[in-house]
């Protein structure tokens, strides 16, 4: 009896502990999608996939054989006139893949911790933020442009490009927004402590506003020229998702599951709704409709004046932003049978990947 009890105890310990992490090294994430014409590129676990948007047919997968310790969750980004696809990995490496064949061009191995966010690609180079607190600048061959720019905490947010200042806006978990020179990697200016970590890409308006969501339960808009705070908007919970600028409006959200439309220049509330669940990703705005997802398995479609058009139940949690080529909407559910699904404009599922056996 005692023997059986001890064996059962050992099995229970092993099962319980592995259930806590799902794997030995807890490093999981949600997939992000990049769409180019009829091909969807997305990262999911140990591989990056290229699929035909119309039917879900796999074009290629990188690497062909999954490797232990290599995980991709950031959205792939195009570079070099779309001849390179840059993907950041949890294995601390940045990979350049040929988008036509899925073959590796080069890899940059200079970072010391995992990449959470996608790099920013501009004509000046590729700028990759890392959990090792640093921003790496490399050229189109993966050669470092300058010494990495260091912040006080890990960087989980993709940098944003500002045409008007010709600089990179970099938000860090150290509560600070930095303006960095793409030529030298040096600091141009930085904000004071904004009160909470920032984990999403800042939004830059044509009128010269830089808007960031913070875990200080607020969204802050800064004037690019004066560097002063122009407005602040309080939210009941952590503001995680990137703000999305749409004409004279900006859409923001928080972990309480509230979605807001604000006046871009003043931060005044235009409308808000709370369909339930946390919102961690920026919405998709297309043809006068806003698509946003929640982690309680729904894709909400709203008109730009705040009227809910549809609330589509989806299997799995939706953390990633929806993507669309105009006809088809792609979603990457987490903890679901399919890790990528395609919907038509009526919300009907056309295909799911991987295909059911």
């Amino acid at each position, binding site marked *: 009896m005692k*023997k059986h009890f001890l064996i059962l105890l050992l099995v229970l*310990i092993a099962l319980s502990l592995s259930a806590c992490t799902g794997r030995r090294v807890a*490093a999981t994430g949600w997939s992000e999608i990049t769409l180019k014409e009829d091909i969807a590129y997305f990262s999911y676990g140990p591989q990056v996939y290229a699929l035909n948007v119309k039917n879900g047919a796999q074009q290629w997968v990188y690497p062909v054989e999954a490797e232990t310790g290599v995980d991709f969750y950031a959205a792939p980004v195009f570079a070099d006139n779309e001849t390179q696809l840059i993907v950041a990995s*949890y294995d601390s490496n940045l990979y350049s893949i040929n988008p036509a064949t899925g073959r590796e061009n080069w890899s940059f191995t200079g970072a010391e911790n995992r990449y959470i966010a996608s790099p920013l690609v501009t004509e000046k180079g590729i700028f990759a933020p890392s959990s090792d607190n640093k921003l790496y600048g490399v050229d189109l061959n993966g050669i470092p442009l300058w010494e990495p720019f260091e912040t006080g905490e890990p960087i989980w947010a993709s940098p944003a490009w500002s045409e008007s200042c010709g600089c990179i806006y970099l938000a860090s978990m150290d509560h600070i927004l930095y303006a960095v020179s793409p030529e030298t990697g040096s600091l141009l200016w930085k904000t004071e402590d904004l009160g909470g970590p920032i984990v999403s890409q800042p939004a830059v308006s044509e009128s010269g506003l830089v808007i960031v969501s913070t875990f200080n339960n607020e969204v802050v808009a800064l004037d690019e020229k004066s560097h002063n705070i122009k407005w602040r908007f309080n939210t009941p919970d*952590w503001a995680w998702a990137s703000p999305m600028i749409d004409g004279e409006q900006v859409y923001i959200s928080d*972990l309480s599951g509230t979605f807001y439309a604000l006046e871009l220049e003043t931060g005044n509330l235009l409308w808000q709704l709370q369909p339930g669940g946390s919102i961690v990703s920026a919405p998709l705005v297309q043809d006068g409709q806003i698509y946003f997802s929640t982690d309680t398995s729904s894709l909400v479609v709203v008109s730009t004046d705040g009227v809910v058009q549809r609330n589509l139940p989806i299997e799995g949690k939706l953390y990633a932003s929806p993507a669309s080529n105009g006809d088809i909407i792609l979603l990457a559910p987490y903890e679901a049978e399919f890790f990528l699904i395609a919907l038509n404009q009526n919300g009907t599922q056309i295909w799911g990947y991987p295909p059911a056996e």
Partner: protein
Amino acid sequence: MWDTFITLMITVLLFIYDFVGQNFGWAIIIFTVLVRVVTYPLTAKQMKSSKAMQELQGSKKWIDIQKKYKNDKEALAQKQMEIYKEMGISPFGSCLPLLIQFPVIIGLYQAIIRALAVTPIQLVNLSKHISDGANLIPIHSQFWWMDLSEPERLVMFGVAVPVLAILVVITSYIQTKMVTPPTQGTADTGGQGAQMTKAMSLYMPFFMGYLALTFASGLALYFIATNLATIAQYVLTGQADFKNILPKLPARS
């Protein structure tokens, strides 16, 4: 219910983390010791039951029935139950308190792993457990040479040595030996119980070492802290038997 329990554990863990200057390693150690202190009444009961069982197994009466019924397991079991009843000992007296502690151990580990939140999905999950802890984010998982969210290796002379896993094996061995002093019964007289105890005291440390080798090093740190806390409890209550730690050589005939 379970989520509420985990939330409570995470809240206490993060309170300690903040209190000790946002050092997650010390937070794990202090939290583990705290949990051991809180669950001490259960440990004491387990220790008492174990001791009573050991005394019983060393008694002449016990050894005699082992010999007498060694070929009739059913009769042996019946006689053993009679003796348990007569002496007022529950055969599960040492197991039940351990079983009650089991959810605490798992809860503690889950709290440690969930609080570390080194990836977005973990941070989203953590946000559901802490209502107002943005000032603690990101949780600093670095402790001495270790990243507590990853399996630990210390590179020495070009060789990656799993220092924590080795310490887990050593402290688990010492702790197991202290908790389960030698049963007087042999394979013949003590029966399967003695064999089982001996096997467990050897396998258990390696099993714990395997977990420490492959899981996040926060778990290994917890194992070491809890082992040392148990050893300290035995020493402080005067029940530690250091002679039992070294393996005994077979007696010369």
